[in-house]
């Protein structure tokens, strides 16, 4: 928080014009209450009911009990967590290498930066269709390139094979987000204090040493933020799967989000209670894991300093 912040609050606060405060905050709070807080509470209420179009019927913990035995759900949890744990590491480490390359004053750095950022501007719908084509068995660039290199036996329908479908989609999200992470890291690198880096050079510290002992500790907070941000994004993933595989083949790419959608709006059970149960449990898992992650990172920081 900037230094002037507290002081500003203090000076204006002497008057406490509640009416004014109300006018400024009311629209936001009303929207928040109607479209975020109330629906969230209602979802949790739903999770203890059977919710049919015309009637609600309390069922206690029955939905939760069923969820524990639901193998498709646990499969989707496994897929989503695999995604959320691998993607951030790939994205952030590749991004770090690229950011360091640009930081080393390569000609055309500005151009590279702008070009690498573009994938993140496209919607998952657009990206999904593009990669459906890229992975196409007959004419997709991946298989065309493999055949051209004489590796035709490696060519396969990447999204149709249960063993490769999930890794192939994880690869797509990494392709999309590396540029974003790179730009953030580059900004962090550029904000490093010159003196420290120069001091390291005077001490005859090589590039590797400078990276490990000086740069990485200094941008550590940014690195961890990016990991958490990417983790949260992958725990929510829906669009890309929905456009490309819809969870197929054989639940290999089913994520929690797509499963909730299917149970709520595609399966002909017409019950909104059970999918709400998935949503409620997932909400707790996401919140819990984000809090644990940030807590772990804090703890390590304390131990080290």
């Amino acid at each position, binding site marked *: 928080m*900037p230094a002037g912040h507290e002081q*500003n609050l203090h000076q204006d*606060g002497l008057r*406490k014009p*509640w009416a*004014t*405060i109300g*006018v400024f*905050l009311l*629209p*936001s*709070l009303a*929207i*928040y209450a*109607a*479209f*975020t807080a*109330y*629906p*969230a509470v*209602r*979802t949790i209420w*739903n999770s203890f009911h059977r*919710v049919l179009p015309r009637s609600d019927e309390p069922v206690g913990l029955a939905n939760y009990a069923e969820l524990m035995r639901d193998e498709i759900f646990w499969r989707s949890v496994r897929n989503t967590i695999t995604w959320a744990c691998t993607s951030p590491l790939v994205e952030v480490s590749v991004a770090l290498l*690229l950011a360091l*390359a640009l930081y080393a004053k*390569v000609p055309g750095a500005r151009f590279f930066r*702008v*070009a*690498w950022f*573009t*994938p993140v*501007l*496209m919607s*998952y*719908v*657009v990206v999904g*269709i*593009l990669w459906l*084509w*890229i992975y196409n068995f007959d004419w997709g660039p991946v298989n065309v390139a493999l055949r051209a290199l004489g590796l035709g036996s490696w060519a396969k329908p990447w999204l149709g094979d249960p063993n490769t479908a999930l890794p192939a989609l994880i690869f797509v999200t990494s*392709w999309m987000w590396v540029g*974003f992470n790179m730009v*953030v890291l580059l900004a962090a690198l550029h*904000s490093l204090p010159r003196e420290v880096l120069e001091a390291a050079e005077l001490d005859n510290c090589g590039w590797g040493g400078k990276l490990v002992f000086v740069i990485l500790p200094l941008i550590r907070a940014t690195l961890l933020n990016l990991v958490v*941000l990417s983790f949260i994004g992958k*725990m*929510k993933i829906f*669009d890309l799967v*929905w456009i490309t595989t819809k969870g197929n083949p054989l639940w290999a790419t089913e994520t*929690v*989000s797509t499963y*909730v*959608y299917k149970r*709520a709006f595609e399966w002909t059970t017409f019950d*909104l209670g059970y999918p*709400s149960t998935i*949503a*409620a449990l997932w*909400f707790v898992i996401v919140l819990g894991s984000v809090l644990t992650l940030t807590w772990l990172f804090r703890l390590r920081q304390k131990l080290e300093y």
Partner: protein
Amino acid sequence: MTMAALKRAALLLLLSLYTAFAAGPFVWAAMLSLRTTTEIHRNHFAPPNPAHWDKFAEAWFTSNYGVYFTNSTQVVVSAVVILTLVGSMAAHCLARYRFRFNRVIYFVLFSTIIFPPQITIISLFQILVQYGLYNSKLGLTLVYVAIQLPLTIYLLESFFARIPSDLFDAARIDGYSDWEIFWRVSLPIALPAVATTVILNFILLWNEFLYAVVLITEEANRTLPLGIQRFIGDTQEDVGMIATGLMIAIIPVVVVYAFFSERLIQGMTAGAVK
């Protein structure tokens, strides 16, 4: 010396390869969008020669992309306008006034950033059905305002808080009311930050899919991402026309990016660097 030059050349080559990998799919889609499906099936990687610009007119008029585009524009523009006004009012208030629960309100609004959308989406469906807002652009607009509000307030609050308080004291001595201070002092100074949130919200909502797919089913109200999804469902094989549709969805974003890339990158990175 030559060793250093060699290293530099290798590095440049590597970076260029990565650039081709990052931007290649986009360039490929642009090429496909100007070719007919018959041409494409002859060779998937040939340049568009001749370029079929008329495919854009065909997509716009006969494949209904004109309707999707108009819907997207209506929903996104009105959501962004409401967001900017409502969000900056709240951000100004939270940054400027000291009152009980200030930080609590800030934290409550902000923490929704990490909510998975499922926690609200099923009930939002029920609620919008109840109030006759299901399958309407108005309903989708309001939901869009709600989902982008936390990020908007977060970005603007941190900017508003940095405006020196002397300015406000001076304005107050000049007899400005609270509203005038917001409208004629805070907002004009914060214009760069406001612009950043406008661009960011525009792009994120333009690309939004999950809420749209749940809350809109009628053809006449479909936004672009939904239109594209319907189109691939109907015409799996018509690669050429699908590519044209993709470009119609991408072009506005690319135009915005071309003009405001620095500002946008700033906005998207601001949250992550802190």
